[in-house]
């Protein structure tokens, strides 16, 4: 495969974890690289490179996206939330607390993506059923935990009244 480099770049303005950011980015720059290399936000992780594993998940305007295949220019004018923006200072998000409490963290490589996907789900549906949580996590892989404790942690944060399976 021949890569034809494009040397032009453009300015984007976005909000990252509540703070306005202005950046010059090349058109092919991926959001994941911009977050990790330019903004030093290393919480989003690179794994599959093809939108399957979810390790790079961040929220763009509240919706989970795979930053590994999302162009930085697409984030222009939008709000990006990464795992670094989940806690309010030292006060953890309830999902972060629950992940610790339920032992939903092992190697930690999937954790940021899991947390953000769960955040989006609970914003959309505060009382999801266990089956709905599992289904919503279809784009987030974990090879360590077997998912049991991740589902438990997310369900512990759901509002009462969630459907059963």
């Amino acid at each position: 495969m021949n890569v034809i480099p494009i040397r032009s770049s453009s300015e984007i303005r976005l909000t990252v974890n509540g703070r306005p950011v202005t950046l010059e980015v090349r058109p092919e720059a991926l959001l994941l690289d911009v977050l990790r290399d330019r903004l030093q936000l290393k919480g989003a992780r690179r794994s599959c490179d093809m939108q399957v594993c979810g390790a790079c998940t961040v929220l763009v305007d509240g919706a989970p996206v795979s930053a590994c295949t999302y162009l930085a220019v697409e984030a222009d004018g939008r709000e990006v939330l990464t795992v670094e923006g989940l806690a309010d200072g030292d006060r953890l998000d309830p999902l972060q607390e629950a992940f610790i409490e339920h032992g939903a963290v092992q190697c930690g490589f999937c954790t940021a993506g899991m947390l953000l996907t769960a955040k989006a789900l609970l914003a959309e549906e505060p009382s999801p059923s266990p089956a709905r949580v599992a289904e919503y996590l279809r784009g987030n892989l974990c090879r360590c935990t077997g998912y049991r404790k991740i589902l438990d942690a997310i369900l512990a944060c759901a509002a009462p009244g969630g459907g059963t399976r």
Partner: protein
Amino acid sequence: MSARTGFRVVGQSVRRTDALEKVTGRARYLSDLELPGMAHARLLRSPHAHARIVRVDVARARALPGVHAVLAASDLTFCDPAYGPALRDRPLLASEVVRYEGEPVVAVAADDEATAVEALDLVEVDYEELPAVTTLEDALAPGAPLVHTAEPLAGHFSDLSTLRAKPGTNICHQFDYGRGDVEAALAAAHLVLEETYTFPRIQHYSMEPHGAVARWDDEGGLTVWASTQNPFSVRAELAAMFALPASRIRIAVPLLGGGFGGKTYAKLEPIAAALARVARRPVRLLASVEDAFRTVRRCSARVTLRLGFLRDGRLDALACRADFDVGAYADIAPRVIQKGTYTATGPYRVSHVQLHSNAVYTNTTPGGAFRGFGVPQIVWGVESMMDIAAGRLERDPVDLRRQNLLAHGEEFAPGDTPVDGKLEESLGRLAEAIRWSDTVPPGRARGIAAMMKASVAPSVSEAIVRLHADGSANVLVSTVEMGQGARTVMAQIAAEVLALPLARVRIVPPDTSITPYDQTSSSSRSTTMVGRAVQEAAEDVVGQLRKIAAGKLGVAAGRLRVEDGAVVSGRTRLPYPDLLDHHFGMRGGELIGRGVVAPGRTAAPLGGSTPFWEVAMGGAEIALDEETGAISVEAYASVSDVGRCINPQQCAAQDEGAVMQGLGHTLLEEMVYEGGQLLNGDLVGYRVPRAGDLPPRLQTRFVENGDGAGPFGAKGVGEGGLIPVSPAVANALARLTGVRLRELPLTPERVWRALRERRQRDATDRTTGGPGDV
């Protein structure tokens, strides 16, 4: 203090010490490391399974601005380019011949990854394709093309110095073990079963692919930050490669994003080090997931078993002949095949045993260590056949297994480690958990399986505990934290012995120039081996504290105890900082404790008795969609004998993860080759378990009799839970449908075809009046 155990920290599900950094994104992995002036590396990989390299032209790549190093095999004059832990059969970069699709041929380091990719596009390589062998059948056929033609040198493991290759074939190692007279016993047996089972190539898919950052210093020393499970093996490999003393090499290990065996032994570190040497700057080499598929995998296997039972159900004879496909380079596969084969009799007492296995080269991704280390491949067959035998003997599968279990304290084999758990208790707990005696709901069936696995031996772990002047402590061990929770467990052990709060104990990350020797973070060994070393090192510190206190108080040291950060004698409390003040005559100085666990070599087969037996049993309840052949696991119960849970939550986490990984190779996963090409070497084509694949009921239970060889009677956990999954599910399928599958994974297509065949056969039998067969 727990009333049940008498422990303060041990046995508690304390929060993981690394959880906060992981949920906040502050945890640092190899790919987060940036060094000033660091170059970024990429590899050009072979498009062919087997080919002669006719020409490599890197001139244009070298001339590209921003490129700092371009290496082909012919450039590696400054090092010994051969490596490998068992056999030094692997070239750092392919030289003259490529032996699998994806083998590194040229390495580039440049200012950034884009430039490195651009440079690789400018490299020209001409190949002349050679006939390839990608299956065991092809590789073992008479006159098969040979993957290796020269006899390689032994690697750095002394216990493999007796490697038995079969010259002129693709067999790079053979393992044999026997006792009794199998042929006579089989001839006399009431029931003899002979069957062949196959196990596929499986990818670890640790979410973090392999990576290494290498930097040479001005004095000729080498530092490599590596995502490795065993930094000391990597150090040994690099020391031999670059003719450096171990003291000049530093391997530092950040948090790992999973390992599962795929990060044992040198992988990318040699190439990164060679590039950094030439580039004269730090070099970072990060694999992609697609690269990982071309770095290491689980050895596939074809296992033929003969089991002989006496009329009363006793398993009297077991013969096993296993061919393991180890891919293009041996990696640690020779040890995988012998460890896996040696425990073919599992948790059972068998008088007559004959085992033979071959490690067979093929032109595919090298096979190496993977959670279970050769055992799942064998247990898949043996435990399927235990159920077949139960059917033929008209016995209950739980009952037949119970009859044959080894007793507590009984030697596994003459001269080898006695069984250190109560196997019957595990089986009983499993039967209870999976509701074996309860009526099965319509359309469902249950199946069980059991396994026993040896850990690595001989084995060495060392630990240093430093108690500082303020009464806090550092624990120096080289255990790699890859998700299994080892750092938390080590902190718990040290905190327990030192009578300190967990928060006052800090585990120092592995760094071969700082933390003491540890063989490997694998083989479920860390809690047992490193844990014992930590316990000893902490006890050493406590002994010193008591001696100091005894001198100060004028009482016998033996009458003093430690409690809540102080040495206590009756009503007198001497906090550690005060004792250190007293000892050193100032606020400064520290007490250093040392622990060494090294059981050494024994007369047992394979050169050492396992320090402990990992025991796990599993039971599955499944349903089946007969239209599609899709199996759904509705309930799964896993029971592990861990001696004692140091951290019950993390033990459960290990087994939940192990079961799901086991369900992966049972139902979904297989690396597929066609014409020497890996067809599904990425996560779109290779399907690992997702959250939706979690059985609605997944239970993990633990047998805790405090009889393990590790600290506080604990022993290893982590691999065992994965191993019974395949036969448990297949046994359930057989009980549900009468269909017995001997090939993994149990894909809908395979199940559907088997069901159709059975229906057709049933129909034929009905018309001809022939016998039905199950």
